[in-house]
């Protein structure tokens, strides 16, 4: 019994919620809405009455369970360490089981499962994105929706890549005397939007004598489906990825987005709990799944020689699912601090959710925007020129916020700065 298959799986968690209200201090949604259901203990109380059979799982209740970014700030601040994020995920899955999936989400997740169709759509989309999206002027890349289809018109979306990342690279990227062979799980955002991030990951791994394979059959990580309660789709995607990686074989799987990391490390094993064969496979890969920052600090320590100067004032935003989800927050900072020329300036509360939370920002665009604007104010307070983070979804949200606030920051993944530093280092060496 997992949180994805039965609401009963969280009954013990719910019992441990004493309704102390400490979650109010840190919940980004609560701070905007000032409303009891918005905060963890409120939704926990809904699950409580559901488990006691004292209420129906109405559509209204399902809507309220959507009010969570699963940022886990409440979990970290809870005296009883109640995993309220898991309670919400279990409630969403239960809602889908009892009430079915929202028709739009159904179409989206079905497309995600059909990787070829999805890939084709994104490629076609890259040609025609100008129809729906208007490019923004100036040095920033990206575009805004021309008309509001319920996503809000303010959000600045990155441009769809003319050629997806995985089509740009061979399956195996060889290096001389490899220390290790790793398989790169790109995730959709890197594949279709942020190919520059993917390139940086590959470049850095190459510099560090790591052979990179990019399993061609990989697809969506499944998190958008699992957090919306579409367990069958999430399972199908998990299996697809596990098979794709198992076929290629590697010493480790490298992820550079926080949802993907969570998927490989935790979610696949939970999702596939009742399928022993796949569960075994999921556990095996979970044990060798690494966020790229983690990998370069703990597994193959990144080379300090050959780092060139990067003159930037940088502030770092902690992605929730990397920081609280995978307990990785020192590693990216260690990397940033070791790059010559970079001055790291901490923002106030770097671990507070940026409000993107994947599909949350599509369901609740206004809330997402409001939560984001607090983060942007904290960024503005640092007087820096660059925002580094370690998740493409956060990057999208932060970039959109920075553009809309009229700030000049460049928003990048930590790996892009490390790759820039190595590139400058090798240029300097060549000049000598």
């Amino acid at each position, binding site marked *: 019994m997992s949180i994805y298959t039965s609401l009963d799986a969280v009954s013990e968690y719910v019992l441990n919620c004493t309704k102390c209200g400490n979650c109010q201090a840190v919940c980004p949604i609560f701070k905007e809405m000032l409303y009891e259901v918005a905060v963890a203990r409120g939704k926990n109380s809904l699950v409580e009455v559901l488990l006691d059979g004292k209420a129906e799982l*109405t559509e209204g209740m399902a809507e309220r369970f959507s009010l969570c970014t699963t940022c886990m700030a409440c979990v970290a601040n809870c005296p009883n360490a109640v995993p309220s994020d898991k309670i919400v995920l279990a409630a969403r899955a239960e809602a889908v089981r009892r009430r079915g999936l929202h028709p739009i989400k159904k179409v989206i997740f079905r497309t995600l499962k059909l990787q070829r169709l999805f890939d084709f759509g994104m490629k076609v989309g890259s040609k025609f994105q100008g129809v729906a999206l208007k490019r923004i002027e100036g040095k920033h890349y990206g575009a805004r929706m021309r008309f509001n289809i319920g996503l809000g018109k303010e959000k600045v979306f990155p441009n769809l890549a003319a050629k997806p990342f995985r089509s740009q690279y061979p399956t195996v990227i060889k290096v001389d005397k490899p220390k290790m062979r790793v398989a790169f799980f790109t995730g959709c955002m890197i594949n279709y939007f942020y190919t520059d991030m993917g390139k940086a990951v590959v470049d850095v791994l190459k510099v560090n004598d790591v052979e990179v394979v990019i399993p061609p059959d990989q697809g969506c990580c499944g998190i958008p489906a699992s957090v919306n309660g579409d367990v069958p789709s999430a399972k199908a995607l998990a299996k697809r990825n596990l098979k794709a990686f198992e076929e290629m074989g590697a010493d480790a799987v490298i992820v550079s987005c926080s949802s993907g990391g969570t998927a490989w490390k935790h979610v696949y094993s939970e999702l596939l709990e009742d399928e022993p064969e796949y569960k075994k496979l999921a556990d095996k890969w979970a044990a060798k799944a690494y966020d790229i920052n983690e990998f370069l600090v703990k597994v193959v320590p990144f080379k300090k020689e050959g780092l060139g100067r990067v003159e930037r004032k940088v502030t770092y935003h902690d992605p929730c699912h990397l920081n609280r989800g995978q307990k990785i927050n020192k590693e990216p900072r260690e990397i940033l601090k070791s790059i010559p020329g970079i001055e790291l300036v901490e923002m106030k509360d770097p671990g507070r959710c940026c409000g993107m939370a994947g599909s949350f920002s599509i369901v609740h665009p206004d809330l997402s925007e409001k939560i984001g604007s607090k983060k942007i104010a904290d960024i503005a307070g640092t007087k820096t020129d660059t925002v580094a983070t370690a998740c493409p979804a956060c990057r999208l949200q932060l970039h959109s916020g920075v553009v809309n606030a009229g700030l000049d920051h460049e928003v990048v993944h930590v790996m892009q700065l490390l790759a820039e530093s190595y590139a400058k280092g090798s240029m300097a060496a060549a000049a000598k």
Partner: protein
Amino acid sequence: MFNQEVLNELIKALGKDKVLSDREDLIAYSYDATAAVPRQEPDVVVTPTSTEDVVEVVKIANRYKLPIYPRGSGTNLSGGAIPLQKGIVLTTWKMNKILELDTDNLVATVQPGVVIQALNDEAMKHGLMYPPDPGTVSTATMGGSVSECSGGLKGLKYGVTKHYVMGLEVVLGSGEVIKWGGKTVKNVSGYDLTALFTGAEGTLGIITKILVKLTPIPEAKKSLLAVFDDLDKAGNAISDIIRHKVIPATLEILDKVTIGTVENFTHAGLPTDAEAVLLIEVDGYKEVVEREAPIVEKVCRDNGAVDIKVAKTDEERDKIWFARRNALPSLAQVKPALVLEDATVPRSKIPDIIKEIRKIAEKYNLLIGTYGHAGDGNLHPTIVIDPRDEDEVQRMHKAVDEIFHAAIGLGGTLSGEHGIGIGKVRYLPLEFGEAGVRVIRRIKEALDPNYVLNPGKMVLREE
């Protein structure tokens, strides 16, 4: 009686977005932070944004004889915010503006929904602070805090909420609005209604504006940790520190059970064979702190402390307070629910009450960790229970009963800072007799004859 007509009137008076009536929302207003008290869903939740809104709600409630339950963040520990008789929950969350910070008169005027920490953050910009600091400082609202007269860690030196409230604007049960008190330190005009409404648990009026005193932030502080192998020695040390004319900002105690539980969960290296640990912080001007800290250290040593640690850096200070911060979370790990009491005795009786509580714990076979504000005699015997275990819940109720009797017997009070609320109402005669209870009832009925405001808390209709 609540019906569609009431709902329509509320919506007409306040606007649709300030009224919640879906069951999916009402469920989440059926509780507060209190364990082992009944839950009840209200008929409707309103979120006023102004005094005028509150007046409208009170008028409608009176017309239909519906109870109103004022609610801040719902973090209290006496059932104060639970809508026992259904009716209207009035949340103050959106009345959350700091209206004025007057640095000449050292006062702040706030709306009731301002979170205590938010006021402190603002005051800090001017080198000032609002000293009352209950454990819920980062969530509790000023309105709730004033209504419950919350205390916290700094009570010994700085006093509690009531020592900081200088004036109030209150909507009475009749819908009339009164303003009492003001920015002057001295004010003897009429009865001191500011004091009356402070700690009234929302039973006499709804606070819509609060004027509080601020104080300068102390320049320096120093923390010490003293370990005792004997409870009486720790007790003597507490009194002896005061006798030496040192008033620490904070003087906390952890008993053996609490130390063991914290150590079990945090492995912070606490002395599990100790009978008591005292955590002491002195604050003030640098020179004062430099003089007082060694006195505290010497007094602890003279009273037989087996080990003393003095924090030299912020890091060491954090380490000292780590155990105290983790008292509640660690006890919470033992079983799902916590019953957090606040029996309070004169500080000289601290060892006696701890021993009494220990006897009670043994008698009823319960795990009770006792820790708290030793300097002001306010302890938190914390009983860990599993609410599914009916027998244990029964034993817990009996133990609580005996703890109340023990505290009163030692010259103390039923509640130091959590309030009377639901659970302690029937014990009030124990503290001030039937005549005292009648006085409370007469005051209630003079101001709220229809028992519209927070009924079922602190004062009940004559049976």
